[in-house]
């Protein structure tokens, strides 16, 4: 460690360049992670808060919640506690109203007495017809405001507001199931829903008309979600591999430059293991400083980014990527080990 620190302090510019490169890649990884997680969150946050285990949708829907339509009267009975299953109706919609621009929303029809009810940031749950809960992702919404859905004449009163409840990137508007049916099918009787959501010990025997999806499967089938997560994952994975190569190339060039010095040190009896240890410590120091700067810059970015940018830091993901980055930095330095071990102490004396 002594040699590693001394050399870094002596050749500040050279090692600063390596740190700067690691910092740039680390920052890019954190930025992409923040965007990827933020976007993913925008697709699924409304579903995550159910803490459910699976959903039942129609077989023909190709695992797509929006395309599913279940006839309530034809559903098989559900085994398990009543509180562990709930009906869900869903459609995409447009919110409008006085002082509001037209905005896309995902409309959820639910029974507010079930576990599907969202956690409110302010207000209350609907108690009577035509009362709704909306997410604050809809710009300009306030409590007691009247809104319209999908251009219908019916006005809905906002009685509760949630935060970070989105589905398929759109803020969710929650209606009572009866109001949803009235809006979509023209009758307050709930005859059709999109899915039956199950949690805990709830079980249902599916028929050839029905299919059961786990929550991760349901989320993965949200249009655009899978390709988006895979694209970001590939980009981040590629960056992690690139960092290993960049550090590897830098350290290898530095090692070649230091062959004569290493030769002298080997001649003096400093073992190859001690020199390799120094190289490894160097890569750890460079990695820790570069990653630390990346984390700092990421924190500053979070402060200045506009709220409209779907950017969310997940401490677990950032911690995991930081650890992988550090490992990749050390792996990069491993390229030079064989070169150090190959150095002949005779090089110090001109190869006698």
């Amino acid at each position, binding site marked *: 460690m*002594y*040699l590693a620190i*001394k*050399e870094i302090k*002596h*050749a500040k510019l050279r090692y600063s360049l390596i740190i700067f490169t690691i910092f740039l890649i680390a920052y890019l990884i954190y930025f992409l992670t923040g965007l990827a997680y933020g976007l993913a969150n925008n697709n699924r946050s409304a579903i995550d808060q159910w803490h459910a285990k699976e959903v039942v949708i129609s077989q023909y829907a190709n695992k797509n919640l929006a395309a599913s339509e279940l006839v309530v009267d034809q559903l098989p009975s559900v085994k398990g506690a009543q509180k562990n299953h709930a009906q869900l109706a869903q459609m995409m919609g447009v919110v409008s109203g006085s002082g509001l621009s037209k905005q896309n929303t995902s409309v959820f029809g639910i029974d507010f007495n079930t576990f599907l009810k969202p956690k409110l940031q302010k207000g209350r749950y609907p108690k009577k017809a035509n009362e709704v809960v909306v997410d604050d992702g809809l710009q300009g919404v306030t409590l007691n405001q009247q809104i319209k859905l999908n251009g219908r004449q019916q006005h809905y009163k906002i009685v509760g507001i949630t935060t970070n409840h989105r589905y398929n990137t759109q803020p969710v508007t929650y209606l009572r199931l009866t109001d949803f049916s009235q809006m979509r099918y023209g009758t307050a009787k709930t005859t059709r829903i999109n899915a039956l959501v199950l949690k805990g010990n709830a079980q249902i025997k599916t028929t050839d008309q029905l299919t059961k999806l786990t929550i991760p499967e349901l989320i993965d089938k949200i249009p655009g979600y899978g390709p988006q997560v895979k694209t970001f994952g590939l980009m981040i994975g590629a960056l992690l591999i690139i960092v290993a190569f960049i550090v590897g190339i830098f350290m290898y060039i530095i090692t070649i430059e230091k062959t004569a*010095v290493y030769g*002298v*040190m*080997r*001649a*003096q*009896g*400093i*073992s*190859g293991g*001690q020199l390799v240890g120094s190289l490894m410590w160097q890569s750890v120091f460079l990695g820790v400083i570069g990653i630390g700067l990346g984390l700092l810059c990421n924190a500053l970015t979070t402060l200045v980014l506009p709220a409209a940018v779907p950017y969310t830091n997940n401490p677990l993901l950032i911690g995991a990527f930081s650890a992988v980055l550090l490992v990749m930095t050390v792996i990069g330095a491993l390229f030079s080990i064989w070169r150090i071990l190959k150095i002949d*102490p*005779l090089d*110090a*004396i*001109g190869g*006698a």
Partner: protein
Amino acid sequence: MALMRLEKIVKKFGTGDQQTTALNQIDLTIEKGQFIGLTGPSGSGKTTLLTIMGSLQGPTSGKLFFKDQEISQLSEKQRSALRFNDFGFILQSSNLVPFLTVEEQFELVDRLRDKQAPQSAEQLLTNLGVWDQRRQYPTSLSGGQRQRVAIARALYGQPDLIFADEPTASLDSKRALQVADQLAKITKETGQTIVMVSHDERVLEYTDHQYVMRDGQLT
């Protein structure tokens, strides 16, 4: 007990028609406290002999003993430990680590040894007239200062045997004679043994015994 003993040391390089014999049946005994000079024309095998004695490489055949222990067949790890603990090296080019200051060169040895050297770095550097340069990096020292620091570094930890390969080659004649004089004094004062390769006859006059290498043989 001889400090080092060489028995019929042979060193060959290359194979087949390209094979050359650098050292041919070398026998040599070095006693403790001696200042030995090795000279001879270029290519005669002086440096090869020095590197074999210093365990930087092994002989093709023959036996090498240090304090009556055979060291010609040691592994690289064992040879490394031997060089670190028992041998010192003064090389033609500086044997200093460029990114360490003068005093840090000695601190490195202490850290790797996990114990304090019997003789302080301050004493060695003061004796050699380079204590004032202790906070400087090797690149900011003159050639003479660098070589004197290298000598101090080689003596640090009081190794039994010091190998010097043309230690005065990069110095002017006045400084070269001063260095030779200092090396001679060290052998007398500390009982350490020095084997020095040099072409400079005036420098060799300071040694106790001189050997001439010619075509791989010692005369």
